[in-house]
């Protein structure tokens, strides 16, 4: 494992599988009466959020607290940042208070990379989403969810997603979730197809390790997982698509379309969902939709990442591990 987690593309297959396996152990902790491990006792983690994202921040906070870390939450609004303080000064101020790791969410692509590589601070940096670049823990929790559902919690240990067919639908152009997922799923051996109107695909997507299609219906029948991405309504004002209704008709997932998917296939969404836009209520509330599980899994995966980056060689969980099949 590296010192930081900036991009899903930085993870090797073995790194990624190790995180997923560790997350399985962490998930078992959640089933205990006391959901807390002493692993990061005495370590301080700051959640440095320059963008509003309550759900991601809470997920990290839950993960940090379950590992017994001391947690500091910093939001840009109302802070020195709103008075013009630079990212560098903010980060150095926090580090001067003795922070071991910085979990950063920032609107500017590359901000976590700058934080990790510019010599500004020594702390571990974990990217909690930067601009339209990367959101690696989201990709990890998505992969974790897929492995659990498509392979199995125990059967999946030590395994990747070899040959699983994953379709990502929606605003690829503006999506850090899409970029992270393409990178990680490719590393884990999955076959990825992106589906979007051509306006919402970046120029240059042809070099990504995935297929691209403009036609949702033809990909549904050959998908093991379909992940819908949020489409912001304001995009139509910039002429990315004509109307909300047209988008829904062409790229939204409703009950009829879901019926075309193989029986075992799951529907995923990183949230927040725009019901009626990219997903209908019928699909969102169906048993095939993993959106709530993804939230639960997010805590386990973030615990695994924090533990592996910060915890060192100590075993995370002190119960007997199930025997892995070699």
């Amino acid at each position: 494992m590296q010192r930081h987690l900036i991009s899903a593309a930085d993870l090797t297959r073995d790194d990624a599988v190790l995180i997923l396996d560790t997350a399985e152990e962490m998930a078992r902790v959640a089933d205990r009466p006391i959901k807390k491990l002493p692993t990061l006792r005495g370590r301080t983690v700051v959640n440095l959020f320059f963008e509003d994202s309550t759900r991601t921040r809470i997920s990290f906070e839950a993960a940090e607290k379950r590992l017994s870390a001391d947690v500091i939450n910093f939001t840009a609004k109302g802070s020195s940042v709103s008075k013009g303080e630079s990212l560098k000064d903010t980060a150095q101020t926090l580090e001067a208070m003795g922070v071991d790791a910085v979990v950063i969410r920032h609107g500017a692509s590359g901000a976590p990379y700058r934080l990790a590589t510019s010599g500004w601070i020594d702390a571990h940096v974990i990217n909690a989403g930067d601009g339209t670049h990367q959101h690696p823990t989201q990709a990890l929790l998505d992969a974790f969810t897929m492995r659990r559902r498509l392979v199995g919690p125990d059967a999946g240990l030590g395994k990747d997603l070899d040959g699983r067919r994953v379709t990502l639908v929606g605003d690829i152009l503006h999506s850090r979730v899409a970029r992270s997922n393409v990178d990680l799923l490719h590393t884990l051996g999955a076959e990825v197809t992106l589906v979007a109107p051509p306006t919402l695909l970046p120029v240059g997507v042809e070099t990504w390790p995935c297929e691209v299609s403009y036609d949702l219906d033809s990909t549904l029948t050959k998908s093991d997982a379909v992940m819908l991405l949020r489409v912001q309504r304001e995009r139509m004002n910039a002429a990315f698509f004509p109307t909300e209704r047209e988008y829904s008709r062409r790229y939204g997932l409703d009950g009829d379309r879901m019926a075309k998917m193989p029986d075992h296939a799951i529907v995923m969404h990183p949230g927040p969902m725009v019901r009626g836009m990219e997903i209908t209520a019928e699909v969102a509330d169906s048993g095939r939709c993993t959106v709530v599980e993804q939230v639960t899994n997010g805590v386990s995966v973030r615990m695994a990442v924090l533990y592996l980056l910060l915890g060192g060689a100590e075993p995370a969980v002190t119960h007997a591990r199930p025997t892995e099949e070699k």
Partner: protein
Amino acid sequence: MSKTLIRGAKVLGGEPQDVLIDGTTIAEVGTGLSAEGAEVVEAGGKVLLPGLVDLHTHLREPGREDSETVLTGTRAAASGGYTNVFAMANTFPVADTAGVVEQVWRLGQESGYCDVQPIGAVTVGLEGAKLAELGAMHESAAGVTVFSDDGKCVHDAVIMRRALEYVKAFDGVVAQHAQEPRLTEGAQMNEGVVSAELGLGGWPAVAEESIIARDVLLAEHVGSRVHICHLSTAGSVEIVRWAKSRGIDVTAEVTPHHLLLTDELVRSYDPVYKVNPPLRTERDVLALREALADGTIDIVATDHAPHPHEDKDCEWAAAAMGMVGLETALSVVQETMVDTGLLDWAGVAERMSFKPAKIGQATGHGRPVSAGEPANLTLVDTEYRGRVDPAGFASRSRNTPYEGRELPGRVTHTWLRGKATLVDGKLT
């Protein structure tokens, strides 16, 4: 008057010759010239060029003296071998009146390191809506002949047409920063494979090319000449080549950084590589070099754009666009054009002195190295190779993309009308 004998210099890269400066002019060029009464500079096979002329410099004064002043900028110019720089109009206040251009011109006169020719804004406040008083700026003491909204594009086709027509009355030229504004909203870097991966807003080549195509057609229609600033794409080269073949009166410039660097460098997210127009691809770089060699692109201009440290020591999106360039331009041109065999030193003199002076109608600059001409000269040690160290820059700013990079060539001496402004690499 003082005399200086430059002994054994390869004039424009030719056979070694002696050049005698008497007062402000070149008195004699030949071999075995007498050193009597003259201070001798042993050139020892260094290359002697006419003083370089930069048609595109940001001196930042008035308004942003924290990044550069006319004095520090002209010292940087002398260090880089320049004797004349054209100062862009995007200062605070904007150089859109006779008063501001005269102020910049006067500051240049006072500096004594390099002549400063102010460029006037095309439109009031660079806002693209209303023509600035172009005639008044031309008639001022600054004698403005080049007009540009550089930093912003004169995007309105009617305003551009009128500006092209209007400056014909006094043989002015409009230098266009070609950037279609709607296609570049939120643009952070070249749009392509790298931007897709990095999640940075794309600045598509077509945003430059469509404006150049429009403007060469406008120039043809109204019978004006037009100059294209910092051309950066292979497609732009094709359009300018086509326009020239049609007899359209268009000239174009390329920056040193677009001849050397590509958007792959942006993977570092280091804003030192953030510039407008953005760094493009390897294919573009090669097309630009070829076009500069074959004359499709007329000149090299630095687009020297100083910024204070804090404007680059931040995340990419928050950073300012631009790079300093005066002190590294000739080295980059040697690296990309001379050492690659694309240009000889006479070709460099044409593209970095004669032609830019001609486009900007500079008087006394861009003249041949021969008897009777003003002694504006640059001596270059072309055998030198060394790493770029921004700590040694004369510019007030340090935002160079070449820090630590090994480059060839070093300007050792610069003379402005016979007065040495740089001696053995040190400013006087």
